[in-house]
């Protein structure tokens, strides 16, 4: 997912429909728009109240061609609607040249497009996950609508998880709220600023980012460490040992941890079965004593790194590792051997970590990204938010 950068300061928002579509009954439009807003109340404390007049947060209009905001609609097809981010007012405009329909495969489904546009009104940008509601392309009528994990992680990163009992007006399966676990606090130490080498870094199912180091873990914010960390790994992942080699979360929502010849599988903080198992048992073709592992955003496959080599693992294939692997890590232009960690971060980029430095990888060019300051950059400054540490490594990448 991607965030535009602004959000509402309040969670109880109001809206009004100041111009209705030509071809639908108002009462039906009111119901569909309410259902579309309710999509975003399901996993947060956001509430949406319809008003018929006066000032509101989000104004909705069905209009055609040029309609006063400088972004003319283009007739049937093409652009269906657009919305403004909170900092620009949050309003949503729908092209009334479209054949808006309700609960039918004909025309364009009002509920789906409206739910997408309200994501923008709340601060979400487009996602490159084709299964996400916030993907830019209309996918046709979906009789059974389900918000993608990518969308949930996005909206919760802006407005937090659901804590109130407010049930949205639409009919959704009650979300299975995992009991939140607050492990005992371990006093924050500055050691990670002196020695920022990590064992592994991975994202959890709901988009949190964790760095493991020894027997402790750090929960990362967008540019530093969350208050009260590090904490003990064993307190949040009961049964998991210290000094983990590698970790990743797969699209099945499970997180896999690797150490020596063994691996563990967790769902959130719960061990997901009888673990540890042997890597050779669950990941045929993958070696022991790994350096790093990740799910690469370029193709959704699992990549393992060890020494100067890497393996690609595809659970859907038999065998899951082609005979052409391992291949040299030098194929990933600019990435060094003997890595410590690899991560596909929530901003869509792929990152590699080695020692106290990290590399950002440009997936489209299949090479380490060029930027200022150049890569590698110091991990302490950019990932752990360590104040008096340099922001660059002072030499240009060869």
């Amino acid at each position, binding site marked *: 997912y991607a965030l535009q950068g602004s959000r509402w300061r309040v969670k109880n928002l109001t809206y009004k429909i100041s111009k209705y579509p030509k071809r639908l009954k108002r009462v039906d439009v009111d119901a569909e728009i309410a259902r579309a807003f309710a999509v975003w109340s399901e996993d947060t404390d956001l509430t949406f109240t319809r008003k018929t007049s006066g000032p509101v947060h989000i104004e909705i209009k069905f209009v055609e061609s040029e309609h006063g905001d400088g972004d003319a609609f283009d007739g*049937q*097809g093409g652009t269906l609607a657009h919305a403004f981010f909170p900092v620009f007012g949050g309003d949503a405009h729908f092209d009334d040249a479209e054949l808006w329909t309700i609960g039918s495969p004909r025309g364009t489904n009002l509920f789906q497009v409206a739910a997408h546009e309200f994501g923008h009104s709340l601060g979400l940008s*487009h996602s490159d996950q084709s299964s996400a509601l916030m993907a830019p392309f209309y996918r046709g009528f979906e009789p059974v609508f389900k918000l993608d994990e990518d969308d949930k992680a996005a909206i919760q990163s802006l407005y937090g998880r659901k804590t109130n009992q407010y049930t949205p007006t639409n009919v959704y399966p009650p979300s299975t709220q995992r009991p939140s676990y607050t492990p005992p606090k371990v006093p924050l130490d500055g050691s990670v600023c002196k020695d920022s080498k990590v064992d592994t870094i991975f994202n959890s199912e709901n988009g949190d980012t964790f760095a493991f180091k020894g027997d402790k873990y750090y929960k990362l914010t967008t*540019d530093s460490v969350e208050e009260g960390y590090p904490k003990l790994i064993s307190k949040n992942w009961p049964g998991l040992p210290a000094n983990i080699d590698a970790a990743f979360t797969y699209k099945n929502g499970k997180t896999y941890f690797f150490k020596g010849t063994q691996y563990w599988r967790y769902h959130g903080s719960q061990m997901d079965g009888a673990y540890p198992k042997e890597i050779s048992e669950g990941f045929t073709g993958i070696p022991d004593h790994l350096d790093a592992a990740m799910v690469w955003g370029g193709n959704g496959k699992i990549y393992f790194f060890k020494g100067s080599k890497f393996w690609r693992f595809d659970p859907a294939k038999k065998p899951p590792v082609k005979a052409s692997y391992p291949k040299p890590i030098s194929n990933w232009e600019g990435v060094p051997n003997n890595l410590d960690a690899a991560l596909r971060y929530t*901003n869509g*980029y792929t990152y590699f970590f080695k020692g106290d430095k990290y590399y950002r990888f440009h997936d489209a060019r299949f090479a380490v990204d060029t930027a200022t300051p150049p890569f590698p950059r110091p991990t302490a400054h950019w990932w752990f938010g360590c104040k008096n540490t340099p922001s660059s490594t002072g030499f240009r990448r060869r």
Partner: protein
Amino acid sequence: AVQSAPVSTTSQAEIYLSQFGYLPASARNPASSGLQDKHTWVSAIEEFQNFAGLNVTGELDEETMKLMSLPRCGVRDRVGSSDTRSKR
């Protein structure tokens, strides 16, 4: 009803890429269209293909123009400068 035209020419693709944030807004101005340097043009196509989950070829191929013709949201895919991504 007015139908929006599918993307089938380079200049239509240029307008599309500019409309959705892959090329500078100036490219939407027909007077200046065609003034992209090769690297900018190829990068824009690569970025769009990468974002849309297509094979990243840098070429304005059939597959890419077909996707550009799909009904979609009018909000840009690339919002603001590239550093809207997290600080890292």
